[in-house]
């Protein structure tokens, strides 16, 4: 396809959509599906058919609309109204002349002028809940693949990297490594064979940011990967996606097929010599396979275990070739950066953390679901304004970010801006975007034990500190909770934190102590109170 053809397709699809009197968007992402969204969509489709409204109205499934706690969600295009807790029985009203006047629906209408909506800024999720992820035409109508066209037709690879550098984009997979720097490292490597890998292993408990992006807007990720391929000189890309994400896998497969058919992936992209293929690689769902060297081993068909770095993947990755590995959300940011310019992106957020970040809100919070906010938004705004605070008037105690590699942030730091540096300063990390809220009823020792159990079970077993250390730490934490531990045990726990952090082979073991360290730092009393009195009083042995 040429650039002109792309623009024609966009115009044609927009025209087609405008000719409809209404498009009824049903969220068919995992959260809503689990509470009956498929039935709603089918009922609406049946209603359109039985009233012979085909051609004037259509129903389409979309990615997550964000307010998962009120699913199934449905939006009508003509008036932009959003409804929650929709049932199949509402189908007739949804296709009626004025759905908003229906008494049942009126009750379920969601006010979109609340902070939950207005305090968010959607870049990565801009299309999520807006396009039908199974139709490439929807993505093209929303301006899709124009960034790739621009890159291939108007820019040199070096200019693409310069644009990404200007944006200040940093990796969303957890560590926040500058994306342009990584691209440059790969681009500068000699050799004709290079790879681009999208890390969609997302294994943190409670995290579903990447999954939502893949399910809700798969083409955006493919486009980001293709742009990366052009910039670094790779012809082959892989999406490494965990096997449990069946819907994401289906949507990606369909998206790749459609993009290949439209010649947006494959050979002679935009009539240029640039070619780029994308294939899926399905992971078996081990958390450690998200670590980049383990991921490489897994794609190569070996046991998914980390290895020593250096060499880093940009130098020696898949089959020893220079390999660019980025997270799903990182790639998803690329098309808007190229279309709007790096400077536009750099103006959002709080330098040196630019742009937005997607979070999955969970735990003791009213609005559980998926949100996207500018970097630097305060934790208070996220938890109280957007998240709606603790349900039932409960009292906020701590927020956990970064999953098993992160830490717990107590109430005194609610005004901390959420960006890479600020979170690290208070003993947590941004991580991939899980955010769990805890209230006064949560035991912080139990939270630490929970994450340690996760690390123990997910430890690959290669290196001793992590393999045997997480088991010992879990044992000590369990005994503390049972009031069977001594002060010596607590000291050993702290000693093990240092050992794992300094000697483990990969990030899993190195960061496994973080939940313990941060809860010890801010909630040490809870640990002390669980030590039998005679021990904590004198600090001696019996």
């Amino acid at each position, binding site marked *: 396809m040429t650039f002109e053809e792309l623009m024609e397709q966009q115009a044609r699809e927009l025209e087609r959509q405008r000719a409809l009197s209404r498009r009824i968007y049903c969220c068919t992402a995992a959260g809503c599906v689990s509470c009956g969204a498929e039935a709603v969509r089918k009922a609406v489709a049946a209603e359109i058919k039985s009233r012979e409204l085909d051609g004037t109205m259509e129903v389409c499934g979309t990615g997550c609309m964000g307010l998962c706690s009120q699913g199934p969600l449905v939006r009508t295009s003509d008036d932009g109204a959003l409804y929650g807790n929709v049932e199949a029985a509402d189908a007739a009203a949804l296709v009626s002349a004025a759905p908003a006047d229906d008494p049942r629906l009126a009750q379920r209408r969601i006010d979109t002028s609340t902070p939950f909506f207005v305090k968010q800024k959607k870049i990565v999720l801009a299309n999520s809940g807006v396009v039908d992820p199974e139709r490439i035409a929807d993505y093209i109508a929303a301006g899709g693949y124009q960034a790739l066209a621009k890159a291939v037709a108007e820019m040199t690879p070096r200019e693409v990297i310069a644009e990404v550098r200007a944006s200040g984009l940093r990796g969303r997979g957890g560590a926040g490594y500058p994306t342009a720097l990584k691209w440059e490292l790969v681009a500068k490597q000699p050799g004709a064979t290079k790879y681009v890998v999208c890390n969609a292993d997302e294994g943190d408990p409670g995290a579903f940011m990447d999954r939502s992006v893949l399910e809700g807007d798969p083409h955006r990720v493919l486009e980001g990967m293709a742009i990366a391929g052009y910039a670094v000189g790779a012809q082959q890309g892989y999406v490494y996606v965990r096997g449990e994400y069946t819907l994401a896998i289906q949507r990606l497969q369909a998206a790749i097929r459609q993009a290949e058919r439209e010649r947006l992936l494959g050979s002679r992209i935009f009539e240029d010599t640039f070619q780029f293929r994308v294939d899926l690689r399905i992971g078996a769902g*081990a958390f450690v396979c998200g670590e980049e060297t383990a991921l490489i081993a897994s794609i190569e068909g070996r046991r998914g275990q980390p*290895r020593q770095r250096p060499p880093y993947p940009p130098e020696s990755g898949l089959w020893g070739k220079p390999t660019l590995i980025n997270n799903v959300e990182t790639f998803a940011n690329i098309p808007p950066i190229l279309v709007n310019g790096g400077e536009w992106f750099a103006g959002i957020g709080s330098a040196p953390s630019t742009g937005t970040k997607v979070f999955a809100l969970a735990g003791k919070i009213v609005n559980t679901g998926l949100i996207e906010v500018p970097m630097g938004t305060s934790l208070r705004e996220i938890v109280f304004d957007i998240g709606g605070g603790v349900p039932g008037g409960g009292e906020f105690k701590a927020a956990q970010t970064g999953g098993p590699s992160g830490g717990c942030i107590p109430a005194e730091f609610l005004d901390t801006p959420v960006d890479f540096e600020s979170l690290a300063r208070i003993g947590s990390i941004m991580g991939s975007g899980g955010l769990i809220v805890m209230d006064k009823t949560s035991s912080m020792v139990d939270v630490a034990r929970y994450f340690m159990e996760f690390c123990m079970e997910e*430890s690959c*077993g290669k290196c*001793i500190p992590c393999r045997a250390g997480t088991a010992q730490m879990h044992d000590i934490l369990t005994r503390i909770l049972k009031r069977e531990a001594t002060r010596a045990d607590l000291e050993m726990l702290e000693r093990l934190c240092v050992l794992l952090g300094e000697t483990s082979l990969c990030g899993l073991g190195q960061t496994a102590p973080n939940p313990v360290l941060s809860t010890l730092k801010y909630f040490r009393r809870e640990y002390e109170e669980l030590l039998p009195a005679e021990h904590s009083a004198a600090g001696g042995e019996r």
Partner: protein
Amino acid sequence: MSVKTLVIDGKAVTGRAGETIFNVAWENGVRIPRLCHVGGLSDVGACRLCLVEIEGQRKLAAACLTPVEEGMVVHTSSERLKEHRRLILELLLAERNHVCAVCVMNGACELQDLAAELGVDHVRLRYRFPKLGVDTSHERFGQDQNRCILCTRCVRVCDEVEGAHTKDVFGRGSGSLIINDMGGPWGESDTCTSCGKCVQVCPTGALFSKGKSVAEMRKDRGFLKYIVTAREKREWIR
């Protein structure tokens, strides 16, 4: 071949480009502790006992996997490193069953030797004592998972030197096991050539020759160096 000059524990030494800190240190009489490394096999950096401090680097580096660089200043036995090594050994001793008094390797076990050398006189951690299997199905050798420290020396020697790839790691975390072929009894393995290399490289009593009783088992570690050197020099007669 280019030569690198560096300082290890205050001593000015030289090494060839690409040589590891570990090898250069040992050649110069600085014996960095190790369990997973064995000369002649690939290195995996699993035991973390060889970690050293390199001036100017925040992170500790595994000596067995880090090539020497010009001007490096390396410390191999600071108090911090010794503390870490002791605790790593304690973790190992507590992970499975290392009651030396009843082990065939008593007196010649690398784990035991290292513990003595580093002054691990008692274990401050809870012994976990999982009840794991002992496989005596092979006519000449036995395998006791309770004594295994998962160093994967056996896996590597079987694959890289014998070429049989009989052994592999199964499972993950502390529950990992060294299995034969697809996990069946060793004695029924189709691929094992009964060469005994795995038994010789195993640092503990996890792999042993049958018919040895407590403290009788001794291993010939020289053989590996011999084979590998012979291959390099193309001399095949011992």
